[in-house]
């Protein structure tokens, strides 16, 4: 029993990270129907910005987190402006190929600039472990969960109770009608990329602190898994992304606990294939009939 709860705690920590990354996928997909392949690499950039902010500028945890989020938000907007906006009206496959290209560009530039060697993250949190009824929880896990919950609440507020949030929802429902209503669609899309990228960067910094190591290819696997999490929860549905992330995290931790850790990368994709076949709209998504 203790073992199960312990794995659950670990799973929730990992799951919150997937959830944070998945939010960016889901928002971007909800608005322009594009799988932003570069999202995982923005998460990586976020981790590195946080790393440099702490190591070179000696910032403490929270300022470093905010700096990483800000830099990544700008990066997300720049990518959208340069690579995706010119393709707004072309085929979705063309946009997808471009996204793959952007992902490769970021990753390989980072490999060149920062070498493939992993770096150990600076120690901003002295590790403290608490024992609660035989279950071990450390302060890093608490920080991850805390930051994730705060960001979720902020996001929820922005999307549901602000003007830009209302514009986002309008654009995701029908971009053309939204434009007719006087909404600056380009600005809304830009803002969505900024928001999603900032969340991914936060996840990057948290992962750096939690696992204590970062490298330029760290974004590809969590990126793909977070996408799976977004699909699992129902792509385009914001609470779905967080739920999907948690389910993914727990499933992955469970598989590692029950079998060998080498199988963990297969779990995500097995889940994906099953969910796409059984319930393509995801756990919280609505089934939409396709109109001919």
């Amino acid at each position, binding site marked *: 029993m203790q073992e199960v709860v312990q794995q659950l705690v670990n799973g929730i920590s990992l799951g919150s990270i997937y959830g944070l990354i998945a939010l960016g996928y889901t928002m971007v997909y909800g608005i322009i*129907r*594009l*799988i932003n392949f570069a999202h995982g690499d923005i998460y990586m950039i976020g981790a590195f910005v946080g790393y440099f902010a702490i190591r070179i500028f000696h910032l403490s945890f929270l300022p470093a987190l905010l700096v990483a989020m800000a830099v990544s938000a700008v990066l997300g907007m720049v990518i959208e402006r340069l*690579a995706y906006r*010119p*393709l707004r009206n*072309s*085929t*979705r*496959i*063309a*946009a*997808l*190929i*471009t996204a*793959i*290209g*952007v*992902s*490769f*560009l970021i*990753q*390989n*530039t980072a*490999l*060149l600039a920062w070498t493939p060697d992993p770096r150990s993250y600076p120690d901003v949190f002295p590790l403290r472990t608490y024992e609660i009824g035989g279950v071990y929880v450390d302060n890093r896990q608490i920080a991850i969960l805390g930051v994730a919950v705060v960001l979720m609440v902020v996001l929820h507020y922005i999307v549901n109770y602000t003007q830009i949030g209302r514009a986002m929802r309008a654009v995701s429902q029908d971009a053309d009608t939204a434009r007719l209503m006087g909404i600056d669609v380009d600005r809304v899309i830009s803002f969505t990329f900024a928001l999603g990228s900032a969340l991914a960067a936060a996840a990057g910094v948290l992962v750096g602190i939690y696992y204590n190591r970062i490298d330029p290819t760290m974004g*590809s696997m969590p990126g*793909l898994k977070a*996408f*799976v999490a977004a*699909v699992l929860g129902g792509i385009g549905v914001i609470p779905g992304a967080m739920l999907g992330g948690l389910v993914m995290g727990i499933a992955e931790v469970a598989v590692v606990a029950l079998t*060998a850790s*080498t*199988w963990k*990368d*297969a779990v*995500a*994709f*097995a889940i*994906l*294939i099953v969910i*796409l*076949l059984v319930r*393509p709209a995801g756990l919280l998504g609505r089934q939409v009939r396709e109109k*001919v």
Partner: protein
Amino acid sequence: MKKERMFTFSGSSLRQKLSWLAAGLVGLILLAVNIGVYRGTVDFYFSGVLVVALINVILAVSLNLINGFTGQFSLGHAGFMAVGAYVSSLLTIYLDWPFPVVLLIAALVSALLGFVIGLPTLRLKGDYLAIATLGFGEIVRVVLLNLDITGGPRGLGGIFPKTTFFSAELVALLTIIVIGNIIRSSHGRAFVAVREDEIAAEAMGIDTTLYKVLAFSIGAAFAGVAGGLFAHHQMFIDPRSFTFQRSIEILVMVVLGGLGSITGSIIAAVVLTILPEALRGMAEYRMIVYALLLIGLMLVRPQGLFGTKEIGDFLGIERVRWAKAKSQQPAAGVLKSHGGDGR
């Protein structure tokens, strides 16, 4: 029935003359390379590069059948290649079966897997399919990492060097001929009809699921053969040879050449194999260049260098239109509407 000529030639503009000149030149180079390899005057290293180029031709042309002609977006080609590579290597190492038989079995196993994977996933559209096939490729890699018989992360060594320049060339030619003929058959038009507008194709009585799975399985079969050739050329394989990165490399070749152009895929595969070898000093920039190539192409010329054109279109050769084919062209109106909305 009146006998028709295989090809008809039309016009002879300057562009066509130049194209003929270029085609002749390429033919001469190919002849020279063949004689060179045969007589052993081409050095070992370069003939190795040529083998890899030919393997990439097979991969690119077969992926083009799925991505270019049928309009399904597969990102799992490396997975099928891996299956073919491992199956064929295990057969030659443990059972010592003859190489052509082994390649055939590699093709069959990959095709079967393509069928099994394709049947459920091809119900998905566009980007979902891309992710599902990507997931398939990753699962193959993870399985290979965990099995004992494949040597896990240590890889599989001691594979006999059975792939020669000529066997690779033969298989590449076969691939081009087979896929080229499929595309020019009525089945081929069904593939293109699925790409252009699935709903219209279905309305015209084309079994879209069948054709999607068919394209997927045929593409997988050739990828399996390419994997077999690759394994027996490298003499060592490990799961790292078949990552997502490899699938992307093949995709770049297809996209660069033109989604829906066999000629384009061949040229792109050869150029993208030989060019990085020539620019060895810039090796670490290779993936960056690939990435920029992908983005740039999509922004400037999303249809790729050749679009859907083939070498014959440049030479002024009109492909023969069989009387029978004409009567079977209900989807012709659909075919003409290029640039489907890509849903």
